[in-house]
């Protein structure tokens, strides 16, 4: 019990200590500010930016982080993130960008003339704050973090303001023109128009209009101030905060205020353009109607694109891009990374499970990465070492399910350099399939579905959600089942031949097709739109299609299926009906791979093999050390109250008979000096020397006991309750280890399981049988357990003593106490042991049986064996035993033949001496 209590106390202590040691997050309080800035191409437009400044939680001067919100959000939608950063020890400034929230001005799409100028003035503002650490006068130690629209402003500002020290743009664009007008194919032999822009992205002049996303994007700018705010919280999740649940609530609060003021009717211009800059609004109206990018539109969008100015960025950049993002796919982070790295600026990339189309969002992991990046480049010095390094390239992968909780787990394999979308190696997967005819339906409907922009997160399952190809509109080319797993990391490329007339708008995608009932999976829900122009008279054209960048593992046995469709719900497609024939120009699908990434998470944790080995070693040590101590002769080291020097003093000083040492045949005498190896003599059946055993509480149960039993004796072991008789018998059986002294049976020291115990028959403290077995089975199985030959058992003789008759066939649980007692004595006599030890054998027996037992024991001893009987029935002992040993409080009080014991006593009141009187006299309990 003490140990249990100690364990509980220790656990409680650990719990309390953990509670105390674990830091609780410090409180952070934001200060609302309205900061006036001046911007515009001519620096003549006054804008009031609604902002909140969070001083660092630790106090003092700290680096400052500008935290930008996503499109359609406001400073409220990043409040939680701001608090978290402030708790990490940064000063944080959040603001609503011009045209959003309560800030004034119009949306200019992160234009260098507008938003970038605003943020530069915000940096001027924070440089004046006493909480902000400065690199130089007017130059604060500043980082910019933001997602989507906020990510683009981070990149743009870093390009135009060299004071920026680190940026973490998330799910943002490199080229807004390409994002809205992607064209992912290069037409051979001569490209139709424009050609490559050299940015690594497509050529928006021929790009396919990303209709639904553009509509949502523009619509969100429209709806900010006036009507229908329902999409707001959804928008915040998708755009501003990458699915940090609950943040939409903040945005909705802001929107609610806008709604409250929405009673005023809007002018036609407001209804048309909302808070967009009229120039942007006009261009949007134009391209949305035509579904074609005009040169003006491209110029305007390019002005707001980091790709054009990324070479100027000197601030170390961590690009976090979502794998589930059909608005700003991974290729945009790729383009940014390449452009920034080309200028020699440190860049790291992570493809996480999230994006504008949903996914997990990985808010915590993104925060970790962001913190590590900021710690390294803003806090510097010691913090850089403390923070985990951010790898050049990290990809989030599905790690299966946690075996304990059955929850999805994500792995983050890393690579020390960014390989680009082409991978560090390529595998060519052979596709097959005949030329197929596909039609563009009139009006472009019904359209195939790859991702439903904006609601992908709601519909999407783990692997890309709904994807549907309309029959007749799609051509499929399939590989054979993969013989080995294939991990695609980057953009696969394929060559297709398109036959028909005029211009064809097509969409290419690669499915992961498994055998069986599962639907094909479209990784990331992503599709590559492309437009080809079939020259007159040529009849066909070959296009090299760059498929969407994804990280996807194709399992062995799965197939890759390249599908080319004429429609996609997210894009503007021609209304004219048309028919094309699509075939493979080259059978190979080039699949980029990055083997360095796969190596990281693989391998078995070291403890998997180390722990069992260590356990086996520990087990061996436990057993080996346990064995060593158990083999020490039990009498070798007396301890506790055993005092070897006292052994003689402990001898029965009040021994009534002075026994000569050589009076062997009749004597039961303390014989500490007798050598058991005495030449030629048969070993003494039982010899006990200085035997000591203490109870757990230290009180001695047996204290320096010594006596000897000779062959042929029936020895009565006498003593009041608690005298130590049973303890002594248990030590004879090797059940209890003595604290000191030793017991020898036939000259052999008794240890647990000592072979010499096979010559000992015992019945101590009641019978012990398997209650479900019959008496006979019990006896036979017991003998079988000794491993000795059945012929040696003498079953019939033993069972005759038990006298159970037919009852032997009944289960022992039906037996009376006396029956069990007799059966137990029979068991003790199995094999006719040379030394028989019986503890209270007559308990529960009736007088005739007692009498019979007496005769049995006497006869047994006469046959040259030895019997030890403990009893408290003194008359019984007197009649049965030849010798007695009297114990009291664990010590020997007297020993000797019964006759001598009796004669030594003074006859009392005329009768001959009775054992009872002698006994009571000896134990000093005379009445």
């Amino acid at each position: 019990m003490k140990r249990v209590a100690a364990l509980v106390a220790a656990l409680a202590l650990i719990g309390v200590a953990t509670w105390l040691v674990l830091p609780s997050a410090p409180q952070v309080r934001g200060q609302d500010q309205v900061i006036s800035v001046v911007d515009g191409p001519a620096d003549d437009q006054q804008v009031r930016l609604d902002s909140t400044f969070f001083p660092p939680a630790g106090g003092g001067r700290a680096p400052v982080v500008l935290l930008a919100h996503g499109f359609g959000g406001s400073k409220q939608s990043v409040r939680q993130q701001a608090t978290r950063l402030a708790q990490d020890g940064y000063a944080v400034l959040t603001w609503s960008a011009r045209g959003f929230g309560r800030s004034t001005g119009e949306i200019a799409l992160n234009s260098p003339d507008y938003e970038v100028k605003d943020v530069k003035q915000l940096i001027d503002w924070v440089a004046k704050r006493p909480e902000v650490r400065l690199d130089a006068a007017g130059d604060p130690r500043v980082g910019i973090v933001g997602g989507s629209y906020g990510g683009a402003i981070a990149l743009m500002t870093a390009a135009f303001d060299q004071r920026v020290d680190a940026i973490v743009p998330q799910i943002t664009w490199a080229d807004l023109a390409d994002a809205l007008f992607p064209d992912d194919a290069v037409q051979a032999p001569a490209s139709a128009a424009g050609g490559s822009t050299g940015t690594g992205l497509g050529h928006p002049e021929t790009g396919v209009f990303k209709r639904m996303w553009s509509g949502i994007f523009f619509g969100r700018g429209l709806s900010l101030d006036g009507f229908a705010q329902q999409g707001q919280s959804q928008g915040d999740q998708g755009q501003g905060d990458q699915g940090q649940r609950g943040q939409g609530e903040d945005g909705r609060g802001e929107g609610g205020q806008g709604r409250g003021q929405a009673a005023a009717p809007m002018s036609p211009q407001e209804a048309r353009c909302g808070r967009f800059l009229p120039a942007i609004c006009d261009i949007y109206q134009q391209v949305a109607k035509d579904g074609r990018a005009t040169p003006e539109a491209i110029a305007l969008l390019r002005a707001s694109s980091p790709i054009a100015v990324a070479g100027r960025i000197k601030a170390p950049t961590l690009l976090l891009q979502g794998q589930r993002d059909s608005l700003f796919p991974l290729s945009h982070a790729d383009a940014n990374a390449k452009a920034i790295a080309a200028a020699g600026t440190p860049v790291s990339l992570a493809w996480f499970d999230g994006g504008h189309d949903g996914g997990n969002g990985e808010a915590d992991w993104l925060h970790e990465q962001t913190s590590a990046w900021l710690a390294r480049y803003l806090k510097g010095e010691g913090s850089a070492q403390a923070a985990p390094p951010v790898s050049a390239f990290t990809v989030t992968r599905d790690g299966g399910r946690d075996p304990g909780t059955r929850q999805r787990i994500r792995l983050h394999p890393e690579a020390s350099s960014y390989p680009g979308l082409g991978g560090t190696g390529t595998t060519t997967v052979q596709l097959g399939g005949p030329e197929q005819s596909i039609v563009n339906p009139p009006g472009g409907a019904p359209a195939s579905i790859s991702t439903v922009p904006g609601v992908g997160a709601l519909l999407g399952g783990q692997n890309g959600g709904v994807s549907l190809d309309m029959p007749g509109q799609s051509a499929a080319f399939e590989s054979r089942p993969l013989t080995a797993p294939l991990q695609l990391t980057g953009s696969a490329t394929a060559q297709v031949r398109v036959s028909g007339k005029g211009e064809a708008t097509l969409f290419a995608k690669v499915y992961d097709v498994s055998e069986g009932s599962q639907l094909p999976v479209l990784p990331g829900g992503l599709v590559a739109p492309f437009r080809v122009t079939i020259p007159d008279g040529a009849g066909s054209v070959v296009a090299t299609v760059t498929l969407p960048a994804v990280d996807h593992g194709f399992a062995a046995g799965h197939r890759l299926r390249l599908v080319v469709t004429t429609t996609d719900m997210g894009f503007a497609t021609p209304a004219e009906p048309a028919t094309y024939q699509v075939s493979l120009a080259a059978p190979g699908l080039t699949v980029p791979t990055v083997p360095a990434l796969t190596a990281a998470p693989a391998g078995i944790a070291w403890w998997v093999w180390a722990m069992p080995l260590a356990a086996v070693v520990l087990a061996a040590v436990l057993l080996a050390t346990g064995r060593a101590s158990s083999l020490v002769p039990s009498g070798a080291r007396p301890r506790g109250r055993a005092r070897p020097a006292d052994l003689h003093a402990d001898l029965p000083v009040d021994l009534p008979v002075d026994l000569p040492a050589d009076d062997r045949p009749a004597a039961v005498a303390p014989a500490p000096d007798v050598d058991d190896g005495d030449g030629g003599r048969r070993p003494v059946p039982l010899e006990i020397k200085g035997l000591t055993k203490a109870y757990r509480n230290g009180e001695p149960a047996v204290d320096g006991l010594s006596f000897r039993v000779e062959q042929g004796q029936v020895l009565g072991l006498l003593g009041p309750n608690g005298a130590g008789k049973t303890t002594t018998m248990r030590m004879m059986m090797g059940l209890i280890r003595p604290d000191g002294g030793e017991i020898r049976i036939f000259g052999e020291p008794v240890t647990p399981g000592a072979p010499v115990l096979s010559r000992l028959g015992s019945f101590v403290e009641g019978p012990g049988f398997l209650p479900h077995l019959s008496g006979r089975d019990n006896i036979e199985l017991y003998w079988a357990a000794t491993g000795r030959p059945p012929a040696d058992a003498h079953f019939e003789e033993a069972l005759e003593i038990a006298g159970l008759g037919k009852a032997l066939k009944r289960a022992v649980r039906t037996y009376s106490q006396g029956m069990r007692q007799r059966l137990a004595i029979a068991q003790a006599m199995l094999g006719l042991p040379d030394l028989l030890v019986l503890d209270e054998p007559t308990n529960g027996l009736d007088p005739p049986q007692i009498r019979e037992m007496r005769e049995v024991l006497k006869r047994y001893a006469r046959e040259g064996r030895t019997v030890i009987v403990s009893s408290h029935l003194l008359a019984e002992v007197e009649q049965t035993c030849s010798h007695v040993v009297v114990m009291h409080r664990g010590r020997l009080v007297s020993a000797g033949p019964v006759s001598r014991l009796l004669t030594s006593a003074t006859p009392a009141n005329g009768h001959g001496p009775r054992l009872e009187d002698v006994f009571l006299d000896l134990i000093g309990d005379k009445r």
Partner: protein
Amino acid sequence: MTAAPGYAPRRTLPLRVEIVRQFKRRRTIAMFGLLLALPWVLVIAFQFGPQSSDQGPSLRISDLATQSGLNFAAFALSVSANFLLVVAVALFCGDTVSSEANWSSLRYLLAAPIPRDRLLRQKLIVALGYSAAAVICLPLMALLAGTLAFGWNDIQVPVTGEIIPALDILPRFGIVIGYALVSQLVVAALAFLLSTVTDSPLGAVGGAVGLWIVSTILQAVEALGALREFLPTFWNAAWLDALAPELDWSGMVKGASISITYAAVLIAVAFRRFRRKDVVS
């Protein structure tokens, strides 16, 4: 002459004798009866229950149970592995020494004398044998009952719903049973240790099951993070990986590693304690 003629420590308590001693016990027979009857009870329950067919493909393991004998066996194993088999194993291993102490027969076996290490070894072997038989007989009987009731069809994987040919999955089923055996080793070792510590069979069996439940509860505490991986119950359901379309060993290897680690130490402690123990029952 140190020992009685014919006595040899190596011949004491033969396995055959211990098997007979344990087999005739009511709890042994009752437990096996329960394990063998459970699949049939489940079959009957599925026959009586409202048919939820044609309600769209819901792919929980219980919904798939009636699709084939193999599915049914997987289902039977999944519902019993967490508790019933734990109790069965704890019963066979926790009861073996403590019940002897409880009947007082332990001291006569030790005085026979059966060396203590040998007594424990023989009892452990027999108890593990009975435990293994229990763990094996349930899924096999479920396989038989399921095949008779629902036919020998291909297996449909829970959660993903993929179809795997029945013959392909049969070796996997062997892996499942093998892993179930290994993962129950912890329970067996824990119960066995408790069995040598206490004289009350109920205490040993209940203690082992109780600690198992505590571990299961701790495992649900996500705050413990990676520490949970070292709980003996954490990898209990890892055998599900063996039925996935792609056999994933990692979870099972970790589970086996943890299981063997705990079992080795616990059994060693049991032997060490029992050697030094004063048998007073």
